[in-house]
């Protein structure tokens, strides 16, 4: 085990996968000589050369679109969207092409494509850098959507994503790049896609979350433990495929649920979780499920974002509200 931040874990995973499989190629804006604007691809260009680590022209559309051709050629592209909000300019390729390649060719081609992108707020970015699009992405059949909350999972899930024969959107929390730091297994470390993780044990209530909201939920759990409350935190790790069994197990054990996400509330993935809870575990519920989320507005500018992102106080208030139901 080594303690790494999330960025170091991602970088380590990219190095390992490129060394393991020479079909892996990395492409994106500033990923080569500069090592990525956050340094996620640091050292890859020097180690693997310009044929496998490509500084692309500034076009998210062609980065995503080219991955389709690279995959058809038998390569394993790992593309970077510099920020997930910029992927709006690639959505016609991601949703319309990348996600459907296997289906529309009825399995002739393996779209072994990974698209990494930082997302989420808290670092005072300009417009369109922090949007949480996971709900939109999860609504695109054929895509897998992965959102790690720890450095260890970032390493293990990224390796699984790159090895997966299906296209994976790999969403990395901006705030977690340097803000999240934990023990990461050395050498090969694989975390399967579609398996949730219990980030905190507990049986009074479960907070279901993913990405940076897991960190917030854990802080709430730790804080409320001081009041004798036992708050479980379920880290989904992957939204598609979804670990339905783990959700059911947690809800059956706790009976009370809060779902926390950073995205716009309407149409967000939190709604999908609530629906899943109701379908799977309605008779275990002791109180209505409550969502904590962003608001139904575009991701705001810096002076407003602390109000937008669900923080410990909002999550804790939701937890208390659900626990108060007799």
């Amino acid at each position, binding site marked *: 085990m080594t303690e790494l931040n999330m960025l170091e874990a991602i970088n380590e995973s990219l190095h390992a996968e490129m060394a393991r499989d020479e079909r892996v*190629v990395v492409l994106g804006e500033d990923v080569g000589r500069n090592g990525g604007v956050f340094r996620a691809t640091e050292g890859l260009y020097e180690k693997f050369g310009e*044929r*496998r680590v490509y500084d*692309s*022209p500034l*076009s998210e*559309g*062609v980065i*995503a*679109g*080219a*991955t*389709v*051709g*690279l*995959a*058809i*050629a*038998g*390569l394993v*592209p790992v593309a970077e969207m510099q920020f997930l909000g910029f992927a709006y300019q690639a959505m*016609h*390729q991601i949703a*319309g*092409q990348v996600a459907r390649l*296997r*289906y*529309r*060719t*009825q*399995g*002739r081609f*393996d779209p072994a494509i990974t698209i990494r992108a930082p997302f989420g707020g808290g670092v005072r970015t300009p417009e369109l850098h922090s949007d949480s699009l996971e709900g939109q992405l999860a609504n695109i*059949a*054929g895509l*897998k959507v992965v959102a790690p909350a720890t450095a260890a999972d970032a390493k293990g899930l990224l390796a699984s994503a790159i090895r*997966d*024969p*299906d296209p994976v959107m790999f969403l990395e929390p901006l705030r977690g790049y340097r803000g999240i730091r934990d023990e990461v297994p050395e050498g090969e470390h694989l975390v399967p896609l*579609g398996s949730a993780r219990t980030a905190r044990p507990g049986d009074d209530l479960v907070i279901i979350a993913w990405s940076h909201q897991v960190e917030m939920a854990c802080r709430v759990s730790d804080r409320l433990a001081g009041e004798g409350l036992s708050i479980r935190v379920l880290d989904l790790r992957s939204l*598609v*495929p*979804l670990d*339905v*069994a783990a959700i059911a197990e947690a809800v059956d054990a706790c009976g009370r649920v809060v779902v926390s996400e950073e995205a716009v509330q309407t149409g967000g993935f939190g709604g999908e979780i609530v629906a899943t809870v109701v379908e799977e575990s309605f008779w275990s519920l002791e109180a209505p499920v409550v969502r904590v989320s962003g608001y139904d507005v575009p991701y705001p500018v810096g002076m407003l974002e602390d109000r937008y992102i669900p923080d410990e106080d909002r999550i804790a208030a939701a937890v208390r509200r659900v626990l108060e139901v007799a």
Partner: protein
Amino acid sequence: MTRPSDGQRRQMLVDMVSARTQSQRMWNLQRQGQIGTVAPIDGHEATIVAAAHALDPAHDWVVPQYREPLALRRYGPEVLEQFLLYNIGHPAGGHIPAPIRVLPNQISLATQLPHAVGLAWGMTLQDDPGVVLAFFGDGSSSQGDFYEAGNLAGVLKAPVIFLCVNNQWAISTPVHLQTAAESFAAKAAAFGIPGVKVDGNDVDAVYEAVHGARERARSGLGATLIEAALYRLGAHTTADDPTRYVPAEDLAAARRNDPIAILRSRLEAEGLWDAATQSEVESAALTAVDAAHERARTMPLAPDALLDHCVSEDSPRLARQRLALLAEVEGTR
């Protein structure tokens, strides 16, 4: 100058006549309600066929838009067979079997161009000596993907040929409403690649342009944009009524430049074609398209085919949906 041989020109006419014969049969089948929407090939035959003949099917990929498959006989009979499956809406129609280097039709216009560049780039990374030829239309040239793909191809010196089939119409929109540029070929300047405009009704001109672009690509010099100017002699599709917008006199003039008539009269003058050959080719083409239709019509379809090949392995949720679907199918039997 690289001219096709007599044998190649004769084979091109076979492919052109076959394509039109089959397209007209498909038009009729659509009118009879037997198959889905058809985009007739009439007027596009010389360009597509000559381009295919300038390629090596063992190594070079064809990335179509949607009108080309009937004219890709050079890539094997499977292309026609899968096209009929595709046309009637059978999912297997999208699976053109390996090792045929043809991608399925692309309905989201110009999105195939970044794929073509990625594929060409991937081939160079794997030292595959082939090139990629991507078809697109005058209308598709207005999409961002065209510019983004052209730009990347230029930077990468990717072995790709962009073949703009300028048939003067994007459904009802004429080229002067599509672009203010002097030609579509002129847009190559923005990518730093050569752009050439050729007579798309002349197999020799198209063959030579594609052959040259292929040589250039194979020698590492990169991409070429070719504009093949022709005229759409039929409707956009079976769902379209071009008499609403195509000037009758323009169409009449275009018909005097019918690419099949041009090549046929040349080959007849050279003693390479005659009426008997024409009728044999037409008859064989009809037999082939009817056989492909019959094969498509009788192709089995699994009760849960709807859910196949979306992902490599069913997620627990998709597996549950599959069970529910199968139960529903059982219940309605």
